[in-house]
Each structure stands twice: as C-alpha cells, then as structure tokens.
C-alpha cells in the first residue's frame, strides 16, 4: 500500500471517460452504503441559492426590532402569522406560502472561505483532504450518472456566478471523483456564453465540426492507453457539442429582456432564470448552485433609508427568488424541485458596529426551503429577542440545523443514500457523504424531515 492511490484514481477515471454522454456505463464499486435509510426521493433537481457573504438574519427572515432598525423595513405580520420586512423583501412576501423558514440554523465557521467550503461540501475544512473532498454538487453528479438518460444533454452539476477570491476561496469541485463530476461553470455577468450558437453561425460551425471529426487524427488515435486528460477533453468536447446542438439549448441559455426584467435584470436574476430553464428542460441538470455575492455588510448596512448595501442585495434577491418560485409553481415544477436558500453564516445581532455594519456570526442564521414536497408557509425554530441565541430548535433533533443537515436533506430529496462513503480516496481515509465528525463533536446529522410533515 502506498498512501496515494494514484492507480485507483486513474482506473476510476478510465472507466468513466466515455460515460459523460453515453449515459450507460459501469461505476467502480468504491462507494459503500453504511446503513439502511430510505431517501425521500421527492426532488428531480435542486436549486441552491448561495447568499455569499452572510446575510443579516435579523433584517430578513428572523426579523428583530431595535432602535438601530430603519423604519422603512416596514415590518408587519404576514398571513402566516409572523413578522416580516415587507419594505426589504416585498415580492418574496407574496411567496411566503411556498417557503419553509428555518430560524434555528447555525454555521460552524465565521471565516468566509471556510464557511463557503462548508456550505459547498457539507464538510469541515481539513488541509490534508482539501484536494480530495468533492463538493456536494459533484457527489450528486456522481450519483446522477448512474441514472443518466440518453436524452440528457445538460451536465448534472452547474455552478453559476461563483467568483473565486482570496476571501471566499475557490469554487469547490469534484475532488477525488472523476472529472465529469466537475461543475459546469457559467458566469452570467458575461452574457456571451460560448455554449450558445447563433443561428447564422450554425452552418459554419457544423461544417467545422465535421472537418474536425474527419481531420483530427489525434482524436482518431485515442485508445485506453491514451493520456487521461486527452480522453477527458475529447469526452467533454462531445458533451459540449451535444449540448450546443441540442434544439433546446437556446431556450435554456438565451433569455429575453422581458424575462430578465421579471427576475430583476441582474446577473443573479439571469442565473435564477437559467436555473429555471434548466429544470424545465428536464435535460439531466440535477444540482444548480447559484451564487449571489455582496452579503458581507460590514459597513453602511442600512445607509440613508434605502441607500445601504442591504437594500441592494435584498432587492436583487427579492426580484429573482420570488420570480423563480412563481415560475416553478406556474410551470408545475415546484413539486419536483427543491429550492434551498442560505448564506455561509449569519451576522452579529444587536447594535451596529462603528462602521454601521454587522460582523460575521455563526450561532444564528436562516435557511429557506421550498418545493419537492416541503410544506410552505411554515416557520421552524425561534431565537431570543436580539436574535443572538436559539431558544427553540423547532425540530426533533433538539439542536440547530447545521450545514450537514441541509446536505442530508438535499441528498434525501434527490433519492441519494446519504450514508454512503467513498473508500478509495488518495489519502486513504474514507470520504463520508455526511460526516458525523464536526469539529470536536460527533453528531448524528439527519434530514430535516419536519419540513415535509
């Protein structure tokens, strides 16, 4: 034994290399289930809205009053019977009937990059394992490949608008899983997506593709002994071609000004719109990670009535998220799509800092769920008057809802056995889909089943 199972890795890749677009192929038996659980299987796909930076829970879904609070948040009671900031989130106020609001969520981290890592992988940062631990979306992709249909033309894991940076860290990817489990990365700030072919360019593109097929002798020469990267690139090339030339792709990736306006005409709105399209196309996209940056309001959070940072991010979220929920319901897709919305942590409650902002805070935060059988209009958990501590967990586990519980809930909704583990990792340590070891404690993480009952 050597601690680095390079050979296993290579074999793992070799088996899957042509699998991307072929759908039927064998997976190595390196994934083992631990115990008998019955995943719910109520969702065909998941849209995860990642509020990067850490949204202010006491201004939004766990609204608190204080002399620091601006009047124009317009806090009123909803038909569901809880206080809500109509001034900040007016459109979402109309969609609360679809939303399950968890006020008893907690994060493990208060550093952005570590918190984002947690959110995207459901695991604690471990320097020894950071290269091999796959993202939640990659594990979902890995599972999805086993049920891939020949008509599927979209990759199972799509990540939109995540901007890697020193502060937030890189977008988490496939780790030790095969490269085809990596996310398709789309940046909607640049709307010239290379995946979209203009109709006028199509004949020439087709001619070039045929020429490439005919003339690329280096592709013709590929066989099992060819370098893995070349085979992978060839496989991706065919997958991209399949995607680009699918008649549905233009309806998925091309958006009209009217549609965009309904979602707020922002990069985040565009991404939500494309997430909707991907779900509607039923083309094999399973996990759509949509990131909205800008929630790190250390200063000038409120500004002068409607000018502060929070108002802008809330307005963008309000337009896009409400339109997404409305469309999913209208298109009868909400029952088969789980929508999750949360940040990597919350913000410090009470008085503002000298910079008129709020710092990072782990103990309390919100997590929102909708669709796939989740009962909307509900409220789970409660915090004290300041929003500093959880006073009621609101679910049977009698502890906060942690990122691991959110992952478990997502796995379960997609019909994935969350007790599985990957045994042939490079480090030799098993990768558990849901790892009970969180920090120094061992916790029995579970699905938030109460969302459905």
């Amino acid at each position, binding site marked *: 034994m050597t601690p680095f199972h*390079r050979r296993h890795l290579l074999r793992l890749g070799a088996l899957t290399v042509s699998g991307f677009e072929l759908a039927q192929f064998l997976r190595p038996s390196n994934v083992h289930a631990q115990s008998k659980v019955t995943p719910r299987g109520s969702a065909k796909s998941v849209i995860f809205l990642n509020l990067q930076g850490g949204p202010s829970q006491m201004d939004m879904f766990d609204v608190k009053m204080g002399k620091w609070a601006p009047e124009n948040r317009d806090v009123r009671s909803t038909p569901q019977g809880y206080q809500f900031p109509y001034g900040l989130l007016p459109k979402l106020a109309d969609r609360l009937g679809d939303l399950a609001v968890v006020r008893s969520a907690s994060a493990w981290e208060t550093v952005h990059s570590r918190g984002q890592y947690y959110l995207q992988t459901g695991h604690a940062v471990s320097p020894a394992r950071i290269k091999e631990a796959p993202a939640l979306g990659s594990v979902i992709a890995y599972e999805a490949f086993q049920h891939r249909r020949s008509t599927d033309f979209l990759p199972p894991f799509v990540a939109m608008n995540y901007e890697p940076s020193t502060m937030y860290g890189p977008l988490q990817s496939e780790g030790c899983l095969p490269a085809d489990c990596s996310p398709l990365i789309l940046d909607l700030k640049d709307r010239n997506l*290379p995946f979209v072919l203009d109709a006028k360019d199509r004949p020439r593109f087709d001619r070039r593709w045929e020429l490439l097929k005919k003339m*690329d002798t280096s592709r013709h020469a590929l066989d099992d002994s060819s370098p893995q990267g070349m085979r992978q*690139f060839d496989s991706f090339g065919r997958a991209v071609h399949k995607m*680009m030339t699918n008649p549905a792709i233009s309806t998925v990736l091309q958006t009209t000004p009217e549609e965009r306006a309904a979602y707020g005409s922002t990069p985040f709105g565009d991404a939500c719109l494309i997430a909707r399209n991907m779900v509607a196309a039923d083309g094999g996209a399973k996990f759509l990670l949509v990131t909205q940056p800008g929630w790190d309001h250390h200063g000038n959070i409120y500004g002068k009535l409607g000018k502060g940072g929070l108002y802008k991010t809330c307005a963008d979220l309000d337009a896009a998220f409400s339109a997404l929920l409305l469309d999913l319901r209208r298109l009868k897709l909400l029952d088969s799509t789980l929508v999750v919305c949360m940040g990597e942590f919350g913000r410090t409650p009470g008085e503002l800092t000298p910079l008129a902002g709020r710092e990072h805070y782990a103990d309390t935060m919100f997590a929102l769920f909708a669709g796939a059988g989740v009962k909307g209009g509900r409220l789970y958990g409660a915090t004290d008057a300041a929003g500093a501590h959880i006073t009621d967990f609101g679910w049977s586990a009698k502890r906060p809802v942690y990122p691991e519980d959110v992952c478990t809930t997502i796995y379960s909704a997609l019909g994935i056995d969350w007790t599985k583990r990957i045994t042939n990792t490079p480090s030799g340590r098993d990768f558990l889909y849901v790892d009970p070891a969180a920090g120094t404690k061992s916790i029995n993480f579970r699905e938030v089943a109460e969302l459905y009952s």
Partner: protein
Amino acid sequence: MRVPLFSLLAAALLAAALHAEEPNLIDRHIFGKIQAGRVPVAAPASDSEFLRRVYLDVTGRLPDPAVTRKFLADSDPQKRTKIIDSLFPVLPISGMRSVSEAPFLDRWTYFFDDLFRNGQLLQEGINTFHDHIYKSLTLNIPYDEFVRDLITVNAVSTWATGSANFIARSHVFEGDGYQMNHEDTADEIAINSTKLFLGVNLECISCHDGANHLEKVNLWLSSRKRAEMWRQASYFGKTFIDPSYGRFPHFQVRDSRKGYDLSTRSSLRPPRNKKADVTPTFLLTGERPLPGENYRQAYARQLTSHPQFARAAVNLFWAELMGQGIVDGPFDFDLARQDPKNPPPAPWTIQPSHPELLDELAADFRNHGYDLRHLFKRIVSSRAYQLSGKAPAGWKSTYDSYFARRMTRRLSAEQAWDAVAHVAGHTQSYKITYADKRAATVMQTRSPQDVEKSDKPTFTALQAFGQCDRYAIEASRKPTMVQSAILMNDRVIRERVKVAKGSRLETLLRADPAPSNAAVVEELYLTALSRLPTREESETGVELLREYREQGAEDLVWVLLNRLDFLFY
C-alpha cells in the same frame, strides 16, 4: 526464445546511457529500472514532438515555423543539443546590451511568480519582485543564493526591494484588517518556506500535533509536534513586517521584534499552548542558531545546506519538465520514506519512484553550483525526456511512475493562449499595472490583473483554462467543458481564426507572389503542430482552400486549434 522488443529497446537506451561520452545519470536510472521491471518503453520522440515539447517546457512558447522547418531539415546528429542550447539566453556581458527577446526568462519568471504567489496584495511590489526574479535568472544566480536572499533580506520598502516581497507575501492581518499578527505571519513564512524549499508541508502540524491525524497521510509528519512548527516559525519571531509609512500595503521587513510569543492570539489557528520551548530549531536536524547569529541568517544557512533542499528543488523542476515528480506531489515529501537502505515499516513503501536518481540529481545540482540552467539542460537532454508520448504495446497506467513514456499534458493556461495568439498571428498587448510598460505575451505579464485590465475575453479564457490567481486558485491543467466550448465557439476564437488585418492568415494568403494552397497548409501545420502535414492532410487542406480560399483557411485554423494534439503536448 523470443526476446520482447521492448526489452531490447530499453537495453539499447540503457547501453547508450552508459556508454555516452558523458554518461547521463538520468538515463542510467530511468532505463535501468525500466529494464529491471520489464516494462515496455515508448519509442524516442520524433524531431517534431521533441521540438514542440522542449520549446513549450523551456520557453513556454511554440517554435516559429521557420525554426521548425530548419530543424526538421537539419541532418546534424547534434541538432537536438544545438536547439536546446539556443533556448537558454546567453549571460549578459559587461557593457553589452542584454538580449531583448528571452522567452526562457519570461517563462521561468512566471513560474516563480506563481510559486511565490506574487499577486495583487503586494501592489507595486509585484513589479519589483518580478524584476528581482527576472534579473536573478538573467544573471543565473545560483539557486541556493537566490533562496538565501529571499529569507534574509531586509527592506524599508517592498516597493523598492524586490526580494523582500517573498516574506511580505506571507503577512497575516488581525481580524480588523489593520494590525499585523506577527506570530501568524511567522507561522505562514515558516510554512511557505519549508513547503517550497524543502517540499515538506507543515500546514497540518501548524494547528495540531501529527499524532492521531497523519498516520495514514505522512509517516514523518505523524510524529511531529505542533511545538516543532512553532520553533520553526520562531526563526521569524524577531522579524517585523509591517505596512510602512502609512502607505498600505508596502511593507518593511526588519529584525526588530523581541521574538516568537506564544501568548498572542492566533487569528487563523487554534489557541497556542503557552508552555513550550520556542527557541528557533531547524525541524530537519534539531540545529539551532549559533550564539549571536541572526535567526534568519541561521535558518537560510541550515535550510540551503541540508541535502533535502537540493532534493526538493530538483524534484520540483523535474515535475515541471517531466509532468510528474520523482516524489509525486513536489510539496508532499514524507521524510521517513526516502532512504531505500532504511525502509519504513509495512505497509509504507519508499516514496520516490527513483530514490537513487533523486539523490544523484540533487548532488549533481549541488556540484554544479545550484545552476538552474545546468539542471534544466540535464533533464531535457536526457533520452528519458525525449521519449514519445505514445504508449507502447502492452502499456498499463501503473507504468507512469517508470517515466517509460512522455507524460502528455494539457498546455497550461498561459501556454495555451500564447499558442492561440501565435497561430493566429494576433498581436497581444497587455498593460503592466503600476508600470509604463506593455507585455507582448501572457507569459510576460506580471500578474493575471495585467490581462484582466487589457483584454477581458482573454482573461476569461485564461481563468477557464486554470490560470493560477496567486491567491485561492492553483494552476491547473485539468480539462473542463467550458474550455472545450471556448475553443469551439467563444468570440475570442471566432475572432482569432479570421483573416483579419495583421493576422497570420492575412500575411500568408495575401503575400505577393501568392503561395500555393499546399504551401499555406504546410505553414499552418508547422505553426500549430510543429510538424509537416501528412500527404493526406495536405490533400484535405488543399481541397478545403480550393473553393473559398479564405474561408477554407479559417476553417483549417479552427480545426488546428481544436485538435487534441494542439492543446496537449
């Protein structure tokens, strides 16, 4: 009895290695092990394959078609040696103007810029650091001297003293973002310097002891303690690194503090145990500074005189040139698994694929005065480097660590997009931030921001192709779907393949007298793939150009840029 062909080939290559005028120590070990393991070995690389490879590896660029044509036609048996020599710029002679065109210097300066994460937080320091590296390479400063300078330099401003940016780059601010956390900073310098210069990653033991964490990861580190990392960091405990003159963030680097203080609060790691000896102690030997010796001077001396320093260096550059280290993962050395005469307990195995080669190559590097050019030439001159990437019959992926064929890789982001521009004949021009200069290739830029500010579409493409951002993102040669889509249909590619003003196609097609279609096809193959087209390729190409010459030529360029063997080498 039939002798398998592959063992004959390995034996012949081994014999050649042993009987060459200067026996090549690399080939002796590589082909010795191949023969002993009865592993099939690839054929020698063709002249084209070799030329494209050595250009990309040593200079980061594709050869010009004229160079390729001349090289392929040259019948001199020494032509590979000659071409290798031509890639290394001559040393500047006193009083003479230095060579203006030195792709070798650009490529390796970029390599060190990435390695040292010479990025945006340093602001104007990016340029002084870059220039320091560039000049050190120009003068061929011995690698050990180069590293000692990075460790020991004092500076009143990193914007004036380039090499001080290495230490300054590891600075850690308090959570408030204004005050420097000196102990955290010392930890980071210790971690970075041991990682880059010894190949040993102390990240894990910077938070906790190795025991109960690293038993299955790294045998040597599993018995190291967190306090040993502190004692390593303690060499920088007196070092004062601070944004100076209130002009954030140019730094001063001086030894004016009292020393490493365990009572301070860490903003990155679990609280430090307050009861530990933190006398500076070199982790590999237990040596301490001599009485009265400056701590950083002591560390630089101990670091660069330790055999692991040269071993880590040759392994790092070997990995960069050969595609995989002798120890795979240049910063993942397990020091308890290096010596075949003192093997680790089962189930551990010796870590290097070729431990004797690693030691001898390190000794050779030391004996040649830590001369990087000597090391690079040594590697690319070997027959092992010059094997074909095509697998011989009976190949298994487990043979990779034998280096019995070239490890084919995707071009790096910078190589790829300079290559696209080269084929297109596209004039690149990137404004150097904080300087009144422009770069003509991506490889000449100081940091990714130079491209971002001058040419957003190319910057987007570079990001998609795994460019290192010198912060959160490491350089990657992993293929992705987006890369494939960009090469097929991004506007950058659609523009680059056009017969546009100043493009290679325009120059070619509108030359007077007009070249034949066959000559155009030949020139494009030479430019993109460093080889002549086969007869069939030439005929297909000519056919393509016959009806609509310009459109056909554009389509041919598109095909060449989308070939797998354009993007891989």
